[in-house]
C-alpha cells in the first residue's frame, strides 16, 4: 500500500472514529432498538439487551424518537445495558435508559404504574436549571431506569413526551420473533 493510501485509511478511521455520531448512523441504517421490526428481521439492539440481562422479562425499546431528540448509542455489557439520548434543547445525554437485573429504589416514591406488569417509582433530584430525576419500572427479573438530566428552560415538560416514546417488549414475544425468523433453528435463550 502506498503512503497516500495508508494516509487515506488513517484519515478515514480518524473521521469515523472521532467525528461520526454512531447513534445517527444507527438511526439511518435502522439500528435503533425499536419496538417493531421489518418482516424477516429482529432488532439487534433489543436482542442484545435480552442477552445482557437474561432474567429480564421485559425489554425497553423505542417507539419513536420525539422531535428535537436523538438516539446516541447503546452500550451493552453482561448485567447492564445503557441507552443514551440527547436533545437539542436539553443537552447531551439528557436521557439515560438503564436495564439491570434490579435497582435501588431507596428514596424513591411508588406511584401508580400505567403498565400492569410493572411497579413504578419516581425520584426528583433537581428542579432548578431544568430538571433532574429518575423513574424506575420494576418487573420480573429486571428493572428499567429512565434517568433525566434536562438542562433546558422547559424544565420537566419533555419528560412526558419522552416517556411516551419509550415502550417495553416482552421477552417471550422477542423469543417468538427469533424462532420465527430462523425457522425454529434459533432461540433467544439456551434450554
Amino acid at each position, binding site marked *: 500500500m502506498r503512503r497516500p493510501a495508508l494516509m487515506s485509511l488513517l484519515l478515514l478511521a480518524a473521521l469515523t*472514529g472521532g467525528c461520526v455520531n454512531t447513534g445517527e448512523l444507527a438511526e439511518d441504517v435502522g439500528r435503533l432498538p425499536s419496538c417493531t421490526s421489518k418482516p424477516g428481521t429482529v432488532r*439487534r439492539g433489543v436482542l442484545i439487551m435480552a442477552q445482557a440481562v437474561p432474567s429480564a422479562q421485559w425489554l425497553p425499546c423505542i417507539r419513536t424518537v420525539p422531535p428535537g431528540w436523538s438516539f446516541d448509542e447503546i452500550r451493552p455489557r453482561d448485567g447492564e445495558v445503557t441507552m443514551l439520548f440527547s436533545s437539542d434543547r436539553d443537552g447531551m445525554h439528557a436521557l439515560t435508559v438503564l436495564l439491570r437485573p434490579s435497582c435501588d429504589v431507596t428514596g424513591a416514591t411508588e406511584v401508580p404504574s400505567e403498565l400492569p406488569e410493572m411497579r413504578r417509582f419516581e425520584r426528583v433530584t433537581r428542579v432548578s436549571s431544568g430538571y433532574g430525576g429518575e423513574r424506575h419500572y420494576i418487573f420480573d427479573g429486571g428493572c428499567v431506569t429512565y434517568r433525566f438530566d434536562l438542562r433546558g428552560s422547559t424544565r420537566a415538560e419533555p419528560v412526558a413526551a419522552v416517556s411516551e416514546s419509550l415502550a417495553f417488549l416482552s421477552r417471550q414475544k422477542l423469543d417468538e420473533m427469533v424462532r420465527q425468523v430462523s425457522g425454529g433453528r434459533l432461540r433467544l435463550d439456551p434450554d
Partner: protein
Amino acid sequence: MSVPADGMSRADAGRLPAAARARRRRRPSGEPPPLPRQLNKSGKFWLMVAGVAVLFCALLVPSGGLTLRLDEIEGPVLSGLAAVRVDPLTTFFRGLDAAIRPVVLAVWWGSILVMLIWRRWRHLFVWIGTLWLVSNLTDVANQVIQRPRPLTVEMVGSWQGFAMPSRPVAVLAATAVNVLYALVPAGRARDRGKLIAAGLVGLVCAGRLYLAIDHPTDILVGVAIGVAIPLAGWRLLVPNDVFPVTYRRGRAAHLDVTGHRGEAILRALHDQLGVVVTAVKPFGLEGSGGSTPLRMTVKSEPETYLFGKLYAITHLRSDRWYKMGRTLLYGRLEDEKPFNTVRRLVQYEDYVLRLMHSADLPVPEPYGFVEITPEREYLLVTEFFAGAHEVGDVEVDEALIDQGLQIVRQLWEAGLAHRDIKPANLLVRDGRLLLIDSAFAEIRPSPWRQAVDLGNMMLVLALRSDVRTVYDRARLRFSDSEIAEAFAATRGLTMPSQLRRMIREHGRDLHAEFTKLLPQRLPPIRIQRWTVRRVGLLAGVVVLAVLASQLLVALLRSPL
C-alpha cells in the same frame, strides 16, 4: 570498455583504479530498486485478509436477518464446545479472558516506558497510532453492525459491547504485533516471538469460543483487523531496515549498513556509478548526526577507499526539525526552508560540493550519488581523505593558518558559506588543510553568515596555535573591519558545539583575546529576528503541545 558514470566526469572516473571500474547498468522499467520498500508477503496477505473482513462486515450492516442466518451456521460449533464444558476449564478460560484488559494496559505502559528510555519516537508514534486506530475502528464497526452475542447457547463469560468484530481479540492481536515490532529485535527472537504471540492469541480466542461470548467470525474479523493495521503501519512507516530495533546505545540517525542494505549499496555503486566496492563500513559516526558516514573499500591493488554519506528519510526529517528549531529559537537568519525530499537534499549537497571543487577549494572530489531506495535513501560518494587528521589533533603552523584563512577568502569570492567550520570538518594531510562536509553550505549567503565562517575559522586555528599569530596572518588577507565584523557576528550559538566545547576545554576565552587585538570593536550582531512566521510557528507549537499533552494523558490512562 568502461564508460564514465552519470554524474561522474571522465576525469573523475579516470582517477579510480581500473579494477575498481565496471560497466554501468541502467535499471530497466519495472525492475525493483536496489533496496525496495515493501510490505512483504505476510503484510500483503494480512491486508488482503483485512479487506475481506471489512467487506464481510459491510454485508452484515444492512440486515439483521443475515446475522441470524450466520448464527444458524456458527451456532452448532458453539453448542458443541458448550457440550464439553468442565468447571476447571471454564474457570481457566474465564481467568484468561479477564486478564486481557490488565495485560494489555500493563504492556501498553511498559512499552511506552521502554520506547521513551530508548528514544524510539517513531516506534512510539506508530504504536500509539495503530492501537488507537484498531480500537476506534472496532468500536465504530461494533456500533454499526450491532451483532448480538451468540444465541441459543449459554454464555458463561463476561462481555461488553456488540459481538462483531471481537474488540478484545483485535486489541490483543494489535498489542502482540506492536510488542514484536517495537520491542523485539528482528531475526530469530522476533520469529520465536511471533509463534508465542500466535499461541497466546489463539488460546484467548479458543477461550472466548468455549465461553460462547464470541462467534467464530467475530474472532476472525477481530484478528484480521488487529494484525493487518499494525503490520501495515510497521512495515510502511517503520521498516526494519531503516529503523532497526536494537538495545545498543547509538545515534538513531545512523543506519545499519549490513544485510540487505549493505548488499544494495554495493549493487547500486556498481550499477549506477560503475564502481566495484567490496566492503562498506561506518566511519567517524561520532562526528556525524545528520547522515551515516561510510568508508567504502574499492576493489584495487593496493586497497583504495571512497567516502560515502548515506541519507535516508530520517535525515530529511532531522534537517526539517533542525531548521524549524532554529527558526523558533532565532527567527530567520538565512535560508531555513527545509528540503522536501531526500533526493533534493543529496542533490543540493552534491551540487555545492561540485561548486566548491570547481572553485579550487580543498574539498573531497565529488563522484556523484546513487539511489538506494527511490525518494527514501541516497548515497553521496566522494573522495576519501586517507591518512588525514583533524586539525584539532595536530600542531598548527603559519602555513596551515594561511591555508585556513585562504579557504575563507576563496569561499567569499565564490559566493559561498560553509556554515559548519569546526575542527572535525578541517583535516590535515601532508601539510595540506582540507575542508569536508558541505551539508550546511550555502550559495549566496548573507554577509553575516560569511563573517561567521571567518570568525569560526580563526578560533579553530587559534586552538592549536596562538591568537596573535592567527590575527596577524588574518590581516594579510582581510581588512580590520572584516575581522571586527567576524567577531561581532561569531558568538555563542553561532559557533558549532564542538568548537565551543574545545574552547571551554582549552581554558581560555579565545573570542575575548581576539577582540582585544582589534583596533575597532563593533557591537555584537543580534541574531534574534522576529518575523510573522516565527510568531505563527511559536503559536502553532504551543497549541500542538497542549493538544498532544491532552491526548497523551487520555491514552496513558487507557488505550482502550
